């Protein structure tokens, strides 16, 4: 799912994702692409667009122009650095979100007292639309790469936090008792039992957090023009270079698809020893 859902539910899209699996299809691969003939409408739309280009207003350039626009950006040496900046912000932001989300999720999941104490604060923080966070972040941190990463992390960590917390609650107490009765030390228990047991839940969170991280990266870039694909989109639009703008939107869409595919693959790899879900 690529729709940006900052501040929205966490475990809920997991239910939707589970509902995605067609009856009989392997549940693990929830990224089954629908029949390719479904590309027809989109294809027709693009063809139509191309053919009627002459009669459309200037800000609807035909698809072929988009490719030209991208080529121009590449040749001008703008495309690659922008893409790199976006990827870097995304990666750092998501990474920090995973670390922070897991850590706080563990703390909150392990201690009901801590959970209660932090609940209102976290609920409030979670509800902040990242768009509103951006001006505050620029106020406090300026127009820097750090600011970008902070905003991305602040939006992406919630689903990981909440899923880690619920994952911890779902760890069967018998498993923990067994580990204790085998005289495993605390750190061993954490490393060999708790963390692997949490991995599936953490990944549910990551699946949601990754698209969020990408979208927020683009959001920050569009709003603050610091660097990255988003900034480039804004720049192109301001210079009335619409074709480039569309080309960049296409690039953003490709990034989105790539992120989803990557997370799926990563999940399959990391959870390869875990039993199939369900």
């Amino acid at each position: 799912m690529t729709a940006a859902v900052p501040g929205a539910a966490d475990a809920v899209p997991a239910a939707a994702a589970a509902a995605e699996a067609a009856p009989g299809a392997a549940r693990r691969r929830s990224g089954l692409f629908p029949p390719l003939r479904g590309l027809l409408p989109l294809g027709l739309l693009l063809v139509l667009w191309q053919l009627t280009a002459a009669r459309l207003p200037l800000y609807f350039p035909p698809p072929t122009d988009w490719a030209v626009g991208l080529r121009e950006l590449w040749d001008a040496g703008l495309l690659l650095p922008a893409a790199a900046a976006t990827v870097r912000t995304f990666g750092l932001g998501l990474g920090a979100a995973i670390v922070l989300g897991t850590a706080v999720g563990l703390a909150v999941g392990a201690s009901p007292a801590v959970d209660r104490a932090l609940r209102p604060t976290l609920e409030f923080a979670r509800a902040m639309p990242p768009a509103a966070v951006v001006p505050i972040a620029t106020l406090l941190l300026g127009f820097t790469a750090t600011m970008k990463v902070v905003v991305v992390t602040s939006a992406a960590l919630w689903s990981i936090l909440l899923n880690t917390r619920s994952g911890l609650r779902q760890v069967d107490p018998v498993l923990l008792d067994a580990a204790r009765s085998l005289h495993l030390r605390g750190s061993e228990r954490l490393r060999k039992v708790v963390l692997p047991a949490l991995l599936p839940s953490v990944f549910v969170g990551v699946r949601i957090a990754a698209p969020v991280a990408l979208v927020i990266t683009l959001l920050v870039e569009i709003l603050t023009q610091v660097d990255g694909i988003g900034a480039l989109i804004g720049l192109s639009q301001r210079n009335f270079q619409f074709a480039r703008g569309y080309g960049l939107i296409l690039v953003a869409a490709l990034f989105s698809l790539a992120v989803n595919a990557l997370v799926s693959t990563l999940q399959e790899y990391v959870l390869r020893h875990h039993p199939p879900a369900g």
Partner: protein
Amino acid sequence: MSQAGPGSTDAPRTVACRCRGASVELGIGPRSRCILDSVDLDLLEGELVSVLGRSGSGKTTLLRVLGGLLRPAAGSQVAFHGQPVDGPPQGVVFVFQNYAASLLPWRTVDKNVALGLEGRLPAEQLKTQVAEALETVGLADRARDYPWQLSGGMQQRVQLARALAMRPRGMLMDEPFGSLDAMTKASLQDQLQVVHQSTGATIAFVTHDIDEAVYLSDRILVLGGAPATVVHDIRVDLPRPRHQLATKELPEFLRLRRQVHNAVIGAG
């Protein structure tokens, strides 16, 4: 005099586990319930003791206290091999009723069995002990499978193997065969006997199955009352090794069975 244990003579046996005045209260405030009330018991070295009682009679609670998984109320004294119990005691392993939940689903069978030994033994010895344990429970050929690929009975055997690999002096088992079908149960009961005979470990075994208790044990502790205490302590003097059919046809078996049955009913 019971005749279990390797090299056993008629010499008096030492106490493996001593429990005095164990009380457990669960819940807080007005909702608290006293589960156990001043339970006293001794487990002798090499004995196989069943803890029997109706559902909800506190058998599991008692076992968890002995296993250091539950802290009893102040004033209780529980010691294993002379050491006071504060957390899972050295040399004692716990076998859980919910075998599926006690195994790590992301580890293969052999890695699961090795869990308690990792970092504590040199690699070679670890491999040997794991292999022996799997051999004992008859799962040597499933070593590389995952728990979810095995049947319920096999999973319980894996848990058993994990316990055996530790070469324990004591085993505490919480209704280990409760959720298995009759044939698997019988097979595992006999396997437990073999293990008991060959290792001489002290085994405390919670069950609500009277036949099982009489068949397996040297001694049966009947728990009853609310809060629970040990209301009966019945010696089982059937000859060993015991057989599913032959032993269960002995008049002594039937007499004991009736005695225990009445004890459990009467214990309330």
